C-alpha cells in the first residue's frame, strides 16, 4: 500500500554502514550485548561459540606491507527481504518477517535448537546458546528490563533491538501519535557508534537518510548475488572493500567468516 507522499504504509527498517568511517572500536558489539541481555562469555566460549549479534570483522586487501590496506566491517543479521533463508528452513515457525517493520524476528520460545537456520544463513549472523546464560553474581541487576534473556539450546540473533521498537511504539501511543517518528527508534549499535558509521531508518521513506544512503553509488550489500535482498547497506569508496562483499576471503584459511 502506498500513501499519497509515495511512502509505503508499512515500514521497511534498514541500515547503512559506512565502512570507511568504522574504526573497529567494538562499541556497537558491547552496546548490543548490554541492550539485549547477551551474557558474558562462558569459560569455554570461543570465537565460534560466542554470541555477538553484531560482530566487527577486520578485513584486508590481501597484500603485504606497504600495499596492505585494512578495513573494519560490522556484520549483523542482514534482515533479508526476499526468500529469507532462515525463515524457510525453520521447522518450528520460530523465525518470521514482521510485515509492519520488515524485521526478521526470532522467537526463542518456539526454537527447538535444530540450528538449521544457522546452517542456512549465508552471513553466519545467527548464534546458538551452548550454555545457560549466566552473569557474575550481582551483575544480573544490570539487565535491561525490556528484553528477556534466552535459554540454553536456542538460537538468537539481531532483531534491530525490538524492545526499543516496542518502547517507541508505546511512547508514540502515549503522545497520541500513530506512527513512530524518525529518530525515536534506533537500535543500540546505532546510538553507540562513536564514529556515526551506522545509520538506521525506514527504507520506504525516500526522503530518509537511510533510503538515500542505500542509493549511494558507493553502496553495496553482502553476497548480493544470492538475491536475498538484505536491508543492511554498506558503503565504501574503496573498490577492494566492495569486492570483498561478494567474495569474502576467509581469514587464516578458516572455512567461514566466523572462523
Amino acid at each position: 500500500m502506498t500513501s499519497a507522499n509515495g511512502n509505503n504504509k508499512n515500514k521497511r527498517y534498514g541500515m547503512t554502514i559506512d565502512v570507511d568511517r568504522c574504526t573497529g572500536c567494538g562499541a556497537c558489539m558491547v552496546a548490543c550485548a548490554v541492550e539485549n541481555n547477551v551474557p558474558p562469555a562462558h569459560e569455554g566460549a570461543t570465537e565460534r561459540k560466542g554470541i555477538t549479534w553484531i560482530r566487527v570483522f577486520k578485513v584486508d586487501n590481501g597484500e603485504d606491507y606497504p600495499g596492505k590496506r585494512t578495513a573494519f566491517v560490522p556484520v549483523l543479521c542482514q534482515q533479508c527481504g526476499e526468500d529469507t533463508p532462515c525463515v524457510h528452513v525453520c521447522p518450528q515457525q520460530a523465525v518470521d518477517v514482521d510485515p509492519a517493520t520488515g524485521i526478521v524476528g526470532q522467537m526463542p520460545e518456539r526454537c527447538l535448537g535444530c540450528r538449521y537456520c544457522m546452517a542456512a544463513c549465508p552471513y553466519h549472523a545467527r548464534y546458538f546458546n551452548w550454555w545457560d546464560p549466566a552473569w557474575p553474581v550481582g551483575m544480573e541487576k544490570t539487565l535491561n528490563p525490556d528484553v528477556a534473556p534466552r535459554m540454553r539450546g536456542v538460537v538468537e540473533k539481531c532483531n534491530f533491538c525490538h524492545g526499543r521498537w516496542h518502547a517507541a511504539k508505546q511512547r508514540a501511543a502515549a503522545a497520541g501519535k500513530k506512527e513512530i517518528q524518525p529518530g525515536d527508534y534506533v537500535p543500540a549499535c546505532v546510538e553507540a557508534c562513536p564514529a556515526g558509521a551506522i545509520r538506521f531508518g525506514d527504507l520506504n521513506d525516500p526522503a530518509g537518510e537511510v533510503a538515500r544512503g542505500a542509493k549511494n553509488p558507493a553502496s553495496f550489500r553482502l553476497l548480493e548475488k544470492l538475491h536475498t535482498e538484505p536491508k543492511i547497506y554498506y558503503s565504501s569508496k574503496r573498490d577492494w572493500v566492495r569486492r570483498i562483499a561478494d567474495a569474502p576471503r576467509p581469514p587464516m584459511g578458516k572455512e567461514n567468516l566466523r572462523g
Partner: protein
Amino acid sequence: MFTPAPWRLITDTALWSENWPGIPRPASGEIKTRYTHCALCPAGCAVRARLVGSQPVALMGVPAHPLSLGALCPFGLTGHQLPYHPERLKQGPEHEASAAVAGAIAQCAPGERIAVLDLRPGRTASWTYRRAMAAVKNGVYLTAPQPLEGAAVNLAAARTVLSIGAPVMEGWGTPGNVLAARAGFRLIQAEPLESRTASLADLWLRIKPGSGRALALSLIAQLEGKAMPAQAAAETGLGESQIADLAGELARNGPALVLAGDDVPEAVPLNRLTGAWGKALMARAEAPVPDSWKKAAPPAGLASVPDGSIRALLIDESVPGDYIPWNAIAPKLVPGNPVVVVFAWSRSGYGRHAQFTLPAAVYPEMTGDAPAAIDSPAAAFRIFTPLVPAPSGMVDPAVFIASAAGIDASGALRERADAIHKAGRGTLFTCADVKSRPVKELKPEDFWKALNEGGCWMDAGWQAKPPAPLVEGTRWQAKAPASQEASELPLLVALTDLPGSAGLVSPLMSKLYQESNLRLGRNRAALNPASAAACGVGEGAHAMLQTVLGQRPIQVTVSPSVPPGMVEVGASPEILDICGAFSRARVAQS
C-alpha cells in the same frame, strides 16, 4: 500415539530443562535518567545513564556535550557492570595498614622518604596527595610520566598529525573529539605493528621496534637542515629519502603535530620546528585551586628518588592509569621491610607486590573529578557523580592519605568547585537542558549542584605559554636486563595496551577479547605463522612467554599481520612486569 499428552509432556520437559537452573529475570521499575562522567580514563567522557529504580542498566554518551561529543568507548559503555566484577576486592586490612603507615612516618630516617605514587595526576585527589606529602616529613609526591611533557593538544588546528606509536584512534585523548577532528588532518602513523591506528591512518610507516627516538632525531636534523645522524635512518628501518619526504611533508602541510609517548622526549622540540607549538600544541593552565592548597609538594618522577630510600609507598590504583612496572619501583624501596599500601579494585595490579591491598570504590560508585584531557586546549573540571552507592568496607585513598598526614580533605571537591566559581572564568555546560552558562551568572550553590548533576566546567579559552620545565626524573627506566641474546630470545615484544593499569574491564568485554578476534585480550600473544611454527606453537596453544625478567603463561593467536620475529602481547600488569618496552622474549610450549 496420537494423543497430544506425551508430546506436550516432552515439550514441557525440554523447556523446563532449558530454563533450569533458572534464567535471571530483569528487575522492573521506574525508568530514570542521570548524568555523570566516566572515570575509566583521563578523557572523562560525559555519560547518560538509564536507571531502573536506582540501578543503572545502560550507559550512553551525551551527544551535545562540548568535550566528548556524544561518544563513549566500549569500556565506558559497560562501566555500570564493574561493581559486580568477580575479581573485585571486598575487604582489606585498613587498620593494620593505617598503623603501619603511621609507624613508618614516625620512624622515617633523614635519608628516607614517605611517597605517594599517583597514576593519574591533575585530579583534586592529586592535590590532596601533594598537600599531604608537604605536611609529612620527607614526603614526596610521585607521578607517572606525561606524554608531550604534559602539554595540551588542539587536534582541530592540525593539518598533519605524525604519530610515533601514539594510539590516536584507539582511545587516545577524547574519542569523540578525535573522531570529530579526524577529517581535518592527514594521519601518518609510525609504528612497528599494524595497530588499529595504523590501519586507519592515511599512511603507515613500519618502523623498527624501539626506534621512535631515532625517527624523531632524524626529522629534527632534516628540519634544521643538518645532516641526518649517522645510523639513525638505518635504526628506524626507513630509507633516508623516506625520512626526508616525511620531514618535507611536515614542513609543507602545517601546522604539523607530532604525537608520541613519554619514551620520545624529542616530540616537543620537533613540534616547535614544525610550527605546531602555540597552534596545535600548547601549555595549559590547570583549573583553579584554593590558595590554601598551593603549599603542596611538587610533582616528582620516580627516577629522581634515590634507590633504597622509600620507607612507605602508597599507590593510588583506584582509577585506571599508566602502569609503571614493578621492577622500576622495587629498587626505590628501603631494603628490609618497606610499607607498601595499594588502593585498588583487585589484587591483579600492584596488589601482587604490596604488603597491604585496600579495596577501593570503582566507577560508577566513586566520587572524584576529571581534569582536562590531553586533547582539550582549555582547562576543564568534571565530577564523577556516583550512580550506585559503594559497598561498605571500601577505602577512599584520599581520605586515608590525608588522615595519615594529619590534614583534612573531606570537602576537597567542594573547595575546588568554590575556587573555580570564585575565579569567575569560563562556562558551565549542563547535560539535562543542554545549555552553557557563564560561571559569573551562577551562585556557588547552583554551580556545585549542577556539577553534581553531570555539569562540566570549561575555561574561557587557552593561551600559548612556554612549556613548563620537564619534571625532573619523570621518566622511569625499567631495570636493564643483564643480557638479551637474540639467539636465546629471538622475538621482539610489542605490547598492545589495555586501558587501565590493572585491567578493570567488564566481563562483557569478552565480546571483543574472547568471542571475536577484534582485540587481543590480556595474556594473549599474537605470532606470525612462521614465528609460531619456529616456536612449535599453534593457534590457541597455551605457552610461556619468557624474558630475562621472568615468564608468564600466554595463549597463542596466529596472525599474519604480526611481522616475523615479533610477538604482540596483550598487556596486563603481569606481562608488563616482565616486559619492558621492546624487550626480547621467547615463546615456548608449556
